[in-house]
């Protein structure tokens, strides 16, 4: 049986996504998008109440 593949973690810091240089930047973007969605849903609820 082949040994399980392992990989170094070096080089993982650059996510290779245009506009983002670190994974932390992507995580912050996701959190900001989530906060925006909650705000939009709250406004949506109030607008159509």
């Amino acid at each position, binding site marked *: 049986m082949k040994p399980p593949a392992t*990989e170094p973690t070096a080089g993982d810091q650059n996510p290779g996504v245009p506009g983002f240089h670190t994974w932390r930047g992507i995580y912050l973007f*996701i959190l900001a998008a989530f906060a925006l969605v909650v705000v939009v849903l709250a406004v949506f609820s109030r607008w159509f109440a």
Partner: protein
Amino acid sequence: MNTLDWIVLLITMVGIAGYGAWHTRHNDHLDTYLKGSQTMRWGTIGISVMATQASAITFLSIPGQGFESGIGFVQNYFGLPLALIIVCAVFLPIYRQLGVYTAYEFLGRRFDAKTRLLGAGLFLLQRGLAAGVTIYAPAIILSTVLGWRLDLTIIATGVVVIIYTVTGGSEAVSLTQKWQMGVIFGGMVTAFFILVARLPPDLGFGNALHVAGAMGKLRAVDFSFAPDRRYTFWTGLLGGLFLSLSYFGTDQSQVQRYIGGAALREGRLGLMFNALLKIPMQFSILLLGALLFVFYQFQPAPVFYNRVEWRHSAAGAQASVFHALEERNATLHAAKADKIRAWLAARAQGDPATETAARAAMLQAQAATEAVREAARAALVAVNPHAQTKDSDYVFIGFILDQLPHGVIGLLVAVMIAAALGSKAGELNALGTTTTIDLWRHFRPLAAHDEARNVRAAKWLTALWGVTAIAFALFAGFSENLIEAINLIGSIFYGVVLGIFLVAFFLKGVGGTAVFWAAIAAQALIFALFLLRHRIPALDISYLWYNLIGCAACVGLSLALQTLLPDQPGRVINS
């Protein structure tokens, strides 16, 4: 369904399953069979993660939730983005660094064999139970409304998924899920646009939303702290965080979807794809349900949406009672449509006093029709004490069959079956893998070096789980809303499993014996809370809290027990 519908259904379903099985028929390496192709990119991984979570229940029950209770259920997913970030940052790098096949293998490396077996055992127990529901749920609804035989529907969908999952393993699952999600997206978007187009011409999309909102169907966010409310911002954020962290971080059916792939980056981006899109997707499906509610305000609506159950009961000795309820519902329903139009007219005039009075009259008319629906449920129970009185799961499929053109009906039924196959495949793949790696290989260590024998064992065990799920679906009876049944089963076990993993990742000084007994005690506590919830009112809390309580109890007890066992520290694994 006519011939065109059957052609669309069979081409999409059998074609995708056949393609998946054919394309991956030569997968005989354990790595590829259990983890999928090492060339998978983030798009395939992201869609596979989404398809595994989105079962047929998602597309049958969630519109029903929106119809019945409004879109507040979307809050259930508020913890998901944060959970996926934690999985990306902490869980995934360690899984890939260790090269494990299952999440529970990591527990064995970090703690000991008994903790690994406990984690794997809890997963097999809860996922094995849920596997029966995921195959039964669409089958009962589709067989009821389409007149198919329930047992044949369960067996046919089960056998199809077993064939391609056993043949191609994890790669076949991911490959077919990609095409199945294409069918699902196409079908749901089509249904949404047809629904909007079928709204009364004088109503319009904006007014439809105002009607839904005025009827209480569009309260997406509830910031109250009332512990008895099932869905609030806080239960969603905290309970949902723990539920999602458990599901995505420790449930093998998800872990298996993202530990493969070309690189760590691909798995991470696949998960972030879900973190970004999951809430908008669930919101859209719930909104479709809320719009269905508006649609039926201006159409003749049945008093009970599971029409087969209704007709069956109405044909008996109490026919006159059922007929009277139908007539009363029709009268009140027509009156309510007038009240809604009156409210819309008052709202357009801009006179607050008139608008308030018209709104009160509309809500009163809504309460009157709800009272008739309640009386209808009581009539069903009077005839048959075991009657299914929750009809919201039948609203969307009823709309599909009554309102959509042929061809599109076939496509939408294909959506349901595609979702059933996709999630079922992910589950079977994970159940087979965990049983092979964490149980079979553990008890047969000499066989671990024979790759061909491992793959054969994985195939047989996957098939065995498939047959077990079919048998469970054939002989078990389920009640209540089906998606809640799945989440409830998950919540009973997930918190404790997550607790074990959080101790493993973050409390390096805690060893296997402490966490093992802490997990046993925490699971007993959750069982006690669940079983006593109807006897002690204070314990009747939202099931989402079980995730948090189980996890906190496991972590807290692990720390406490470790102080009594200071000479058995854990093994440190750094990412």
